[in-house]
């Protein structure tokens, strides 16, 4: 009987519950899409991994250790070939990702933000190379080959010459042939090129091979570990990897990327779930409150509290089940939508198989049903306690809040939150540990605010009253109505609060980071131009600095050559610049000492000096990355660490004397004093022509671009959170619609004593605006608080002081309130249309 009632109730309230279900459907969809995408990509990349390593039994690589200059040459290949059991060995080199970019026949670069553009040394050793030549010839000097998929896509033709941009400049190369990658050229959108092995160093700026692929005889392959040891023994400072290890390594790299995508989607699912919990809980509370008399009647004719609860929980379970059922195909849709979105943004997403694992379906069901049951638990429990006498009472029975429990919970959560925050800030652990503690603290505080929020409705609504009381009787009634059911107002607003808390926290952190970046650049950059490698992140040949120095139109020039060295048995990052040019290009805020002897001194960062008690005059025996040693005396300490992330700064003379090889990671320069503007412009044009990988900008352009990047991250986050806000608004509309039907008599009465339809509509809309504004104010307040915690947790070079983008924050509150007005459109219309007599009679 209870089951029958459950089904009938679901049918009777289907419209109401459909709105409620929306949030759960969305959440389930995101969970499913995370898994579908993740599993699909994993399978696709798994196939790809197998293609890449097919045929290679062993791979020889330079040992990845400090002090070893990693490169292999023909002698090494010959040494490997001489080893017993080796059938063949070929050296390979791969250019830094995206550093080799062809200009298409349409005269454009292939967008750098999409799948990678990769270039290799060509080898036609059968079985080794994942490439098979399917048309044309292997590349001779001055030639290259490309995978046929990319050739089709961009219209490359065999025999034509194309400009190819590389780390060493522009090159004219003729397309000699087309290749197929693996068995079916599944490149996942990547552009794959190969050049003649004899000119890869000149083209890519590499030195020798970065790996040697080895094929073994069947007998040697049977004892792969001994074979690996033999090959390793033939060379020094190398590691030898088996096919299985390479496959695992490659898969692990892909998986890291896939995990990131998956975490983002799951994170969003989490926000939707959190928001949904409030909305479902609220809808249940109201629907059950409306059914109070009916439930009383059931109690009267003999239903016990357990039966009523089971019935209501059954409804919740069925809704959850339905939401999951819609969410599973929905998730596949979301995955497809995201793929399309990425494509539209120019970030070609790899084609992937749609994989629906049993696990995905089970998780979807658990999430959908679980969340609905959890949300419905409290309202159901309260409703089942309805006394039988409720059936005989007239009018809707208002239930009192269990405010004492709420207060205790709030205090407990606030205490836990405060403790976590205190430990997080005072603990002095790593940034990750700090953020973890703060995140736990923030969630606890969030819970505390949610628990206590019904109590905040009164005071905050009174404050809003200053505005709304002026809007006449509808405004006054709206405020009173919002206050009358403080618990409901608070719960409805909570959903919006979550969304706005996340958005405003992101805005505050973003603004603080921008402010720090802006002040750092303003105060410390005097250079006219910054040249950075935004494409491949591979830097520039050292010859660039020499060319710039030689240009009479230009003045001070320095590069920054990042490398590593060993100090006190610890490997540290070091960068080399020109001590000569540096002071005129940057103000590093050297608070103690200054620049010393270029060949034997270093200046260190303030954080290193403080943490490791390094003082002026301390001398360190440093081993550079080529094994050379040099004694470095600390001559100064710099405080401005926003531009130079390395703790150690030395003059280029240190590198040059020791013969350290390192490219220029970035370069800064100014125009020569009194130089002719056209000469400077010509010099700049030449640089841009010569080094197409470079981004040449002024300090303020650089700042704008960095701010743009921050805004881009924020906008992605905001777009996701916007969905949570939409769910929250649906929740408000839902609550209001229920309130309207609950207050039918009251509205009828107001109409009977002379309130106009318009007045009724306004009353409902204002109430909605009050709820939305309440949620927005609490959310923004919490968001700013959390933002402050984040800023505290981040390193000072990243975000130092709290900066609040007040304009954006106010806009956010206004938008939320206006959206609240919109959410009330339908319920308000319904309230306005009520027939006065029917309303009173009900």
């Amino acid at each position, binding site marked *: 009987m209870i089951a029958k*009632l459950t089904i*009938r109730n679901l049918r009777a309230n289907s419209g109401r519950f459909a709105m409620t279900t929306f949030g759960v459907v969305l959440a389930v969809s995101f969970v499913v899409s995370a898994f579908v995408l993740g599993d699909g990509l994993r399978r696709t990349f798994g196939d790809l991994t197998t293609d890449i390593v097919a045929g290679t039994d062993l791979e020889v690589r330079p040992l990845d250790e400090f002090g070893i200059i990693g490169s292999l040459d023909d002698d090494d290949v010959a040494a490997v070939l001489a080893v017993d059991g080796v059938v063949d060995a070929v050296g390979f080199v791969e250019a830094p990702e995206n550093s080799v970019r062809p200009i298409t026949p349409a005269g454009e670069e292939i967008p750098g933000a999409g799948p990678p553009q990769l270039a290799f040394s060509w080898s036609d050793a059968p079985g080794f190379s994942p490439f098979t030549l399917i048309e044309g010839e292997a590349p001779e000097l001055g030639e290259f080959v490309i995978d046929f998929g990319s050739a089709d896509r961009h219209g490359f033709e065999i025999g034509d010459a194309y400009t190819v941009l590389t780390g060493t400049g522009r090159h004219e190369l003729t397309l000699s042939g087309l290749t197929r990658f693996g068995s079916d050229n599944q490149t996942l959108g990547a552009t794959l090129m190969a050049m003649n092995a004899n000119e890869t160093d000149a083209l890519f700026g590499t030195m020798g091979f970065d790996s040697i692929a080895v094929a073994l005889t069947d007998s040697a392959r049977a004892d792969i570990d001994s074979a690996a040891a033999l090959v390793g023994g033939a060379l020094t400072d190398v590691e030898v990897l088996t096919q299985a290890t390479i496959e695992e390594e490659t898969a692990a790299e892909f998986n890291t990327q896939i995990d990131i995508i998956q975490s983002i989607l799951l994170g969003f699912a989490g926000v939707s779930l959190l928001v949904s919990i409030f909305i479902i809980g609220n809808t249940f509370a109201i629907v059950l409150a409306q059914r109070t008399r*009916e439930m009383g*009647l059931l109690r009267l004719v*003999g*239903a016990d509290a357990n039966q009523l609860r089971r019935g209501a929980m059954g409804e919740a379970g069925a809704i959850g089940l339905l939401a999951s059922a819609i969410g599973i195909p929905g998730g596949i849709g979301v995955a497809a939508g995201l793929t399309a979105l990425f494509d539209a943004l120019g970030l070609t997403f790899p084609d992937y198989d749609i994989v629906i694992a049993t696990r995905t379906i089970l998780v979807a069901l658990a999430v959908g049903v679980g969340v609905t049951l959890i949300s419905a638990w409290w309202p159901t429990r309260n409703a089942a306690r309805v*006394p039988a*006498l409720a059936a005989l009472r007239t009018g809707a029975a208002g239930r009192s809040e269990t405010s004492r429990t709420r207060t205790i919970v709030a205090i407990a959560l606030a205490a836990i939150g405060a403790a976590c925050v205190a430990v997080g800030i005072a603990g002095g652990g790593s940034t990750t540990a700090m953020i973890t503690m703060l995140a736990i603290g923030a969630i606890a505080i969030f819970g505390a605010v949610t628990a206590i929020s019904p109590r905040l409705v009164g005071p905050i609504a009174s404050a809003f009253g200053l505005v709304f009381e002026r809007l006449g009787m509808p405004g006054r009634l709206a405020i009173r109505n919002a206050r009358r059911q403080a618990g409901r107002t608070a719960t409805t607003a909570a959903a919006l609060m979550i969304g706005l808390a996340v958005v405003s926290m992101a805005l505050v952190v973003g603004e603080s980071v921008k402010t720090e970046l802006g002040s750092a650049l303003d105060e410390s950059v005097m250079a006219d131009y910054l040249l950075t490698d935004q494409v491949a992140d591979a830097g520039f040949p050292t010859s660039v600095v020499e060319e710039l120095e030689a240009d009479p139109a230009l003045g001070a020039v320095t590069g920054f050559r990042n490398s590593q060295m060993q100090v006190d048995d610890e490997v540290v990052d070091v960068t080399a610049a020109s001590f000569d040019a540096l002071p005129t290009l940057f103000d590093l805020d050297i608070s103690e000492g200054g620049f010393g002897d270029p060949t034997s001194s270093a200046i260190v960062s303030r954080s290193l000096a403080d943490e490791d008690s390094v003082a002026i005059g301390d001398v360190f025996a440093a081993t550079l990355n080529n094994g050379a040693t040099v004694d470095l005396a600390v001559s100064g300490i710099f405080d401005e660490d926003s531009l130079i992330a390395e703790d150690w700064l030395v003059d280029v003379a240190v590198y040059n004397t020791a013969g350290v090889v390192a490219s220029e990671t970035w370069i800064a320069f100014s125009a020569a004093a009194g130089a002719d503007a056209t000469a400077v412009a010509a010099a700049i044009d030449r640089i841009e022509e010569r080094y197409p990988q470079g981004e040449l900008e002024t300090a303020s352009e650089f700042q704008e671009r960095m701010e743009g990047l921050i805004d881009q991250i924020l906008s992605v986050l905001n777009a996701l959170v916007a969905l949570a806000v939409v769910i929250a608004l649906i929740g408000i509309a839902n609550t209001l619609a229920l309130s309207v039907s609950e207050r039918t008599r009251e509205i009828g009465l107001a109409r009977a004593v002379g309130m106009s339809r318009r007045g009724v509509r306004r009353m409902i809309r204002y109430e909605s605006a009050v709820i939305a504004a309440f949620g927005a104010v609490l959310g923004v307040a919490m968001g700013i608080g959390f933002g402050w915690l984040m800023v505290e947790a981040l390193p000072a070079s990243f975000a130092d002081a709290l900066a609040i983008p007040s304009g954006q924050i106010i806009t956010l509150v206004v938008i939320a309130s206006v959206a609240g007005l919109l959410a009330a459109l339908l319920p308000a219309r319904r309230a306005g249309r009520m027939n006065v007599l029917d309303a009173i009679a009900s």
Partner: protein
Amino acid sequence: MNLSLQNSTIPTLDATAQIAASARSATKVYGDGDTRVTALDHVDVAFEASRFTAIMGPSGSGKSTLMHCMAGLDRLSEGSVFIGSTDITATSEKELTTLRRERLGFIFQAFNLIPTLSAVENITLPSDLAGNRVESAWLEHVVATVGLADRIDHRPNELSGGQQQRVAVARALAGRPELIFADEPTGNLDSRTGAEILEFMRQAVREFGQSIVMVTHDPVAASYADRVVFLADGRVVDELIDPTPDNVLDRMRNLGD
């Protein structure tokens, strides 16, 4: 007061009759201090089995409170209540639920039916909740008695007010409870439909030996009962055996004096 009660302790129709429910020194007080209201003031009353008893009184006389307390829906401040020989004064909520389910039936003025269940589902609801089955011959007999045979699968909103109330009567009868409490069962009905319902109730008492206690302020409705108990200011002030509308009205008029 000019009333003279022959038996002022426990008024009964017949000293040998079985008692379906009784109250001893039943007192119910609401509120505290200034808002203190005594709804029932040491009421002693007994309702015989297989009889139709009406409780009458003006608004605020305590008639509904008496019924609620006797049905175990509300608790007395003082005194005790018996259903048959069971003292339910201190029974737990859970046991009261079982008691209602198995031994009592209810008919109300309005909102009597679960809107999502059909007429027959409403009729068998108490038994279904208890996990029992209504004997089908009995169910048919009850349904036929209230004249609902052709509307049995309709939802409440497809039935007229009178038909809905007939479903409610059938529901109360279906479980063969020891006692049915009816609270203004004809309050929302026109007089002709009301008369029909009252006739069914009387028929149930005559034919099935059902015990019914009805709260009403309508003298015509009260005249269908075998006996009328009058309440005023929380006290039993009078009673009438085999009432007619006229003498009920007469007594009512004298209550305020």
